């Protein structure tokens, strides 16, 4: 009885964030101009591939937001990693190693964020705002204010629209996204560390008094998120085939929006991986649909703005009914 009840509630809880997504997909599917092409498998694959980069960053951002922080440097971090991968490949470093360099750079920036936040006791907003400038500046520096061309390698096959090898069904990037979503969901929900992250976000003082090493939790949280941004940078390089220091300008707000649309609370203690993914896909399908319809950009901007508000309103209404 009790189990059944909680089971039902869980399903309702799961369906919740999907409402917005289903709405967006339905609306575009009903548009006569694109109806046949919108829900086409190839298009869905293509949207999924486009989402990989934002999704990877948003996974880390979920962890950060759950623990009561915020990371404005995510997009710059991604750009830095993207540039470093190209730089490394140009130096003759093997692609795998180059990718690791990118991921490691992301992790370093993340670690620095965490370190400064905990050591200097600064608010995350400011530290990561500063780091946003620093990482972006470093990226431009490394790239000498240009984009870096690098010879093609298998790295550039990770984000293709049509998967190679074909038995993968979808591109390796999508598999990576799925894999890391699962890992992060388990980390957040099933591990002691995840619980501590929630506790720190919900009430830091309490967590500290209960013997949680809040500083360590935060440093780890930012480092993990940084690593994921680094990975997203590798994916961006894979997609662009060049190291572009100006890539993903302003993307941090999209990433944060995805997490919040998915039910994350900026005051900490709330958020889920599934919700975040839904948030990412809402935004991606919106962009895709608007482009396919050929709507002008300003129209798209207005619609996306309105949908962000609407999606979160829906989510809140659902919560209130509970």
């Amino acid at each position, binding site marked *: 009885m009790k189990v059944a009840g909680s089971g039902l509630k869980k399903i309702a809880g799961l369906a919740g964030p999907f409402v917005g997504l289903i709405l967006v997909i339905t609306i575009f599917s009903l548009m006569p101009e694109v109806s046949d092409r919108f829900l086409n498998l190839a298009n869905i694959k*293509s949207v999924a591939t486009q989402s990989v980069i934002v999704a990877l960053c948003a996974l880390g951002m979920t962890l950060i937001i759950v623990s009561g922080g915020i990371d404005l440097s995510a997009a710059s971090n991604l750009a830095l990693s993207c540039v470093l991968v190209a730089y490394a490949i140009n130096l003759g470093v093997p692609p795998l190693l180059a990718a690791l360099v990118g991921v490691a750079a992301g992790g370093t920036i993340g670690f620095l964020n965490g370190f400064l936040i905990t050591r200097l006791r600064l608010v995350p907003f400011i530290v990561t705002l500063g780091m946003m400038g620093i990482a972006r500046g470093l990226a431009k520096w490394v*790239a000498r204010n240009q*984009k870096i061309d690098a010879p093609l390698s298998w790295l550039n096959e990770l984000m293709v629209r049509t998967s190679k090898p074909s038995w993968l069904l979808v591109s390796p990037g999508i598999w990576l996204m799925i894999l890391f979503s699962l890992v992060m969901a388990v980390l957040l929900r099933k591990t002691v560390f995840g619980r501590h992250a929630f506790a720190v976000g919900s009430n830091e003082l309490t967590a500290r008094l209960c013997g949680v090493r809040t500083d360590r939790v935060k440093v780890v949280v930012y480092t993990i998120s940084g690593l994921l941004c680094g990975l997203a940078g590798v994916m961006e390089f894979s*997609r*662009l085939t060049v190291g*572009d220091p*100006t890539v993903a300008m302003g993307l941090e707000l999209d990433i944060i929006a995805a997490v919040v649309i998915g039910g994350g609370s900026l005051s900490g203690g709330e958020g889920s991986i599934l919700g975040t993914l839904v948030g990412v896909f809402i935004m991606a399908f919106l*962009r895709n649909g608007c482009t396919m319809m*050929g709507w002008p950009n300003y129209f798209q901007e207005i619609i996306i703005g309105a949908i962000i508000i609407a999606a979160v309103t829906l989510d809140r209404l659902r919560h209130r009914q509970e």
Partner: protein
Amino acid sequence: RRGDKQSSGPRTYKVAVIPKGTTHEFWKAVHAGAVKAGQELGVEIFWKGPQKEDDRAQQITVVEDFISRRVDGIVLAPLDDRALMRPVDEAMREGIPVVIMDSNLQGDNYISFVATDNYQGGVLAARRLAEVLGGKGKIFLIRYLEGSASTTFREQGFLETITRDYPGIEFLVKDQFAGTTTESAYQLTENLLSRYPQVEGIFAPNESSTFGALRALQHFGLAGKVKLVGFDSSVKLIQALENNEIQGLALQDPMKMGYLAVKVLLDHIQGRPVEKRIDTGVTMATPENMNRPEIRSLLEPDFARYVR
């Protein structure tokens, strides 16, 4: 499959035209050209740039989305000569022909390349600035944006010509980027003017940076005293040209570019042979020659008929 289309009688082709951004006057004129071609040739034009100006990743997304939409052809002004290669390859592979305009794309897996010779534009600007300065003086080169190909060529053309041909001209600044907005160019120039009051000439490689520099000069009361050579045109720049606050504007022919790109694409779709490289020319407008009709039409392309 081209044959299929021809045999299915008269039909409207759907063509996506993808600029680098949507808010510069320059792209408005390209749009007008494309629409003009569309009206004349019976093509429906989808005009869609990346949502954020100059965002390579988003431009890739836009190309991909139009591949998903299965348009009949794409005209693309690539933000990056490398990054856009793969989506273009993909389009071509899926039977969607692509014409490149404005900036080059590496490789040659496209139908045709329709563009201004940007390097030549930089050279023209250098000659003009040297001319008004009498071959000597101290100048700023204000750059546009890190990694933007067309403006980089202009900057390069300018820089190389000055260094090679005009030893009397000295660069006070040549590595500062104005950024994408007028305001950022405005502030940059102001701050540079505070530092180097001795400056005598400025070159800015696109409309927004030219206008920003102009506003800064006006602000300092130096407009007309410090010689300014810019790129592209807009109402305010034309006024400044009239008032002799700007001594030269390198003009492309964006309407022609948009028109030709669509036309070439349609030629290809309908099986006619096309040239691989089409130059749309670059001209220097000066206060002296600006009232000649051929210059006037470049300064103020008549696009109101095609786009609002």
